[in-house]
């Protein structure tokens, strides 16, 4: 039995309860257990004293008097029974129920007419039971609060570190007089820094509520919402000295919060921008080299995303491996599709860029409808591997989702990779030569057709990579590409054709601009504003942010 006083105990007076008082009830419990087993109400398979004791503990819950129920909860907490936590949780959720014949069960799923249940004592599954055979052990709001704090304290002693941390987290703003004493002890003994920090904060909030001026200093700089609530209350309180210092602390916190919010907006903006960069950079290459608008670029992105989905279907249960494998797979699938488009359509339309636009639009319609017919018009979900889900908490107000960070990193990697291809390889050299002056490049012995095919494959492959990345952020559906094509064009046009840096800067800045506008104007209006901005921008600088200079610009 734990020897710390139970703050919520109805027997507790002013927080000074001794363990003995709890222990006093034990003989009664034993007696009752005996009585109960004699009456044949206990259906537990074993008649061990421990189970009997447990039955008595639960039995005490099934009374009409809420005060008595409260005491029964205390008793369960003070018992060393390892099932205590599950019982309390089940009781809190309304899943601790009693059958017609008096057994205690935990309902596992309370949907439908028949509920699967398990024995509360043994944990053995009892199959399904009709809801009519069961009776819930009711609780009221006071008990609910008691249960919550009880669970938190029980967890503080859990051997599981994660559970201790979560419990400390929950206690913020929940501390009252009864809890403050024992908490101080727990803090002394706590081995984990995080638990200690959280509990001290919880205690400081409590002390602030008691009107202690020193508590303000301790709370200063914390970004937790509960701290702000407490400081706010203190700032509006009666004590003028406390109110002033709380107000000051609050202002400091608000300042930090503002910075955090800006950082968050920037992060979301960069993340959105990185998606735009990924989607647009392939387009920038093909457009730059061949002067060709590939309207099917969005569908090549879609193909990449579907490849991810397909690879995951082939490797069930290994989403991480599947995702890594789909990077080359997505590249290849889209690159092959791109080559097919180039050989099948675009090569016949040399020198007619507007016709190419129309023809590739036709290809995009066919690809979309193909996916709808062959796979499904419905969206497919791609599983995010564990190491990419969740988020990285920088502080209490700012946490960065890992999948977006991964996409951001991936986009930068792809960018650097493309940069290297363009700057350091033979292909890159030839591509740049053809971009600048096709005729001259050809007369220098560069096989322009071959360069066209390879460029198109490269640009399309990058679209496939974009699709792989996108599958981690949005649903994969036939319309995926359509949603990005106009944005990608905007990025290319904004950044300037044939300039990878331009695409990077344009994509990231458009993403950030969009995110900055969004809270102020709403998502749709923000998008409209960005579009109008680009339309106006084109008037000022028809060749984008970073126009090509020299003779190439006249091509």
């Amino acid at each position, binding site marked *: 039995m734990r020897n710390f006083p139970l703050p919520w105990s109805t027997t507790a007076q002013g927080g000074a309860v001794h363990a003995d008082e709890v222990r006093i009830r034990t003989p009664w419990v034993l007696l009752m257990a005996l009585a109960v087993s004699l009456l044949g109400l206990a259906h537990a398979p074993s008649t061990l004293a421990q189970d009997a004791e447990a039955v008595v503990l639960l039995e005490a819950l099934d009374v009409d008097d809420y005060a008595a129920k409260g005491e029964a909860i205390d008793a369960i907490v003070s018992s060393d029974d390892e099932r205590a936590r599950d019982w309390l949780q089940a009781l809190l959720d309304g899943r601790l129920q009693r059958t017609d014949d008096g057994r205690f069960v935990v309902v596992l799923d309370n949907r439908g007419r028949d509920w699967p249940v398990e024995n509360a004592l043994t944990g053995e599954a009892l199959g399904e039971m009709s809801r009519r055979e069961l009776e819930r052990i009711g609780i009221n709001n006071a008990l609910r609060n008691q249960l919550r704090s009880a669970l938190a304290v029980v967890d503080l002693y859990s051997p599981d570190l994660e559970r201790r941390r979560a419990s400390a987290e929950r206690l913020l703003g929940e501390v009252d007089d009864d809890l403050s004493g024992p908490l101080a002890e727990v803090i002394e003994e706590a081995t984990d820094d995080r638990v200690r920090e959280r509990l001290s904060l919880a205690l400081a909030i409590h002390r602030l509520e008691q009107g202690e001026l020193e508590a303000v200093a301790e709370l200063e700089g914390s970004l937790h919402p509960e701290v702000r609530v407490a400081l706010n209350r203190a700032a509006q309180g009666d004590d003028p000295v406390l109110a002033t210092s709380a107000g000051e602390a609050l202002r400091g916190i608000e300042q930090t919060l503002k910075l955090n919010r800006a950082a968050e907006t920037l992060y979301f903006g960069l993340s959105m921008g990185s998606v735009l960069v990924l989607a647009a950079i392939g387009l920038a290459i093909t457009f730059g080299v061949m002067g060709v608008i590939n309207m099917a670029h969005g569908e090549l992105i879609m193909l990449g995303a579907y490849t991810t989905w397909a690879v995951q279907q082939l490797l069930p249960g290994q989403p991480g491996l599947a995702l890594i494998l789909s990077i080359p797979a997505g590249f290849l699938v889209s690159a092959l599709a791109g080559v097919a488009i180039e050989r099948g359509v675009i090569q016949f*339309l040399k020198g007619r860029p507007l016709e190419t636009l129309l023809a590739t639009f*036709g290809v995009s319609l066919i690809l979309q409808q193909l996916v709808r017919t062959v796979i499904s018009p419905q969206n497919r979900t791609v599983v995010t591997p564990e190491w990419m889900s969740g988020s990285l908490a920088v502080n209490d107000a700012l946490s960065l989702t890992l999948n977006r960070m991964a996409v951001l990193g991936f986009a930068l990697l792809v960018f650097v990779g493309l940069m290297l291809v363009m700057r350091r390889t033979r292909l890159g050299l030839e591509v740049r030569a053809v971009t600048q002056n096709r005729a001259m490049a050809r007369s220098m012995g560069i096989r322009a057709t071959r360069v066209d095919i390879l460029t198109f494959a490269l640009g399309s492959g990058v679209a496939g990579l974009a699709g792989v990345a996108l599958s981690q952020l949005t649903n994969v559906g036939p319309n995926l590409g359509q949603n990005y094509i106009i944005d990608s064009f905007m990025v290319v046009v904004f950044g300037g054709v044939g300039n990878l840096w331009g695409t990077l800067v344009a994509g990231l800045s458009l993403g950030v601009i969009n995110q900055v506008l969004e809270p102020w104007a709403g998502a749709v209006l923000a998008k409209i504003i960005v579009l109008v901005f680009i339309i106006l921008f084109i*008037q000022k600088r028809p060749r984008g942010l970073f126009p090509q200079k020299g003779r190439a610009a006249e091509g």
Partner: protein
Amino acid sequence: MQSRSWLLRPFSERSTQLFIGVLLAALALVTVLHLAVPAGHPLNVTAYTVNLFGKYLSYALLAVAVDLVWGYLGILSLGHGAFFALGGYAMGMYLMRQIGDRGTYGDPVLPDFMVFLNWESLPWYWQGFDMAWFAFAMVLLAPGALALVFGWLAFRSRVTGVYLSIITQAMTFALMLAFFRNEMGFGGNNGLTDFRDILGFSLRNDATRLGLFIATGVALALGYVICRAIVVSKLGRVCVATRDAEARTRFLGYRVERFQLFVFVISAMLAGVAGALYVPQVGIINPSEFEPIFSIEIVLWVALGGRATLYGAVIGAILVNYAKTVFTGVMPDAWLFALGALFVLVTVFLPRGVAGLLAYRFKRQRRSSDDTATPQEASA
């Protein structure tokens, strides 16, 4: 040079005579078959079909408008759907106001969707749309004003080629997003619908539908003649010169952007008229008309029919939309395949469209040398 009115000049051409003749004959034929042939007779044209033809004709007018800028000016506008929709919305607003207190909520002034959104009074831009002359003026002015502002900005800074195509697409996309918003006051994604009557005639009457069909046919004829008149004038020659060699035309001393702007605005207004005639026949206008795909589809009609011929645009619009009606009725899934294939096949194998095919067939008979020269792509 010529004493005759500029509007009558195209009639000296064989192609115009032929086109207007065929169009008027078709109008008359449909009217007769609808009115005089008893229902149930195989030759009878039902009210539904008349309505459908009316829709095709408004699309044809839209295609003519696109052909004017794409065929003769070299501007591939991927945003003409926006002008069409704006004209449609102007007409829709007039029709909305005509409903009066017959709406579901019975408010004499506010359209149903505004009552639903708890709006207190009519927004300022809805004022005046209860008067037909004002609404019909707006059918021309709203798209015209947008084209004027947009074109002035674009042509002044010499945005051409694919860049222009992309920003026209962005324009219609932005407008679509805007019109989807309920706060805009145009009915959000439901758009404007439940129309009752136009100029006092009930829209549910077969006679009104026939009237609208004929009106659309006449508008198409008029629009065609106007475009033709522009094309055969000196202005039109400058346009073709701009299309084929913009820089050279500029060096010859023409203010290219002014010609472009003028023709672009005319084309937008024609598209607006087409939209205004489309809406009462279809009974609804919503933001989906702003979708970029619709605007690209219009270009396909023109490409299929044959660029820079005007009558080719009409043929293309009717052919594609007839195919669409048939396909979506019989096998809806196949339509997008067919449309996609059309895009590819027409651009690769039929660069001059159906009209080009016809011209090739009847090459020997065609002695009169009108200016249906092969459009040369200005290098982008």
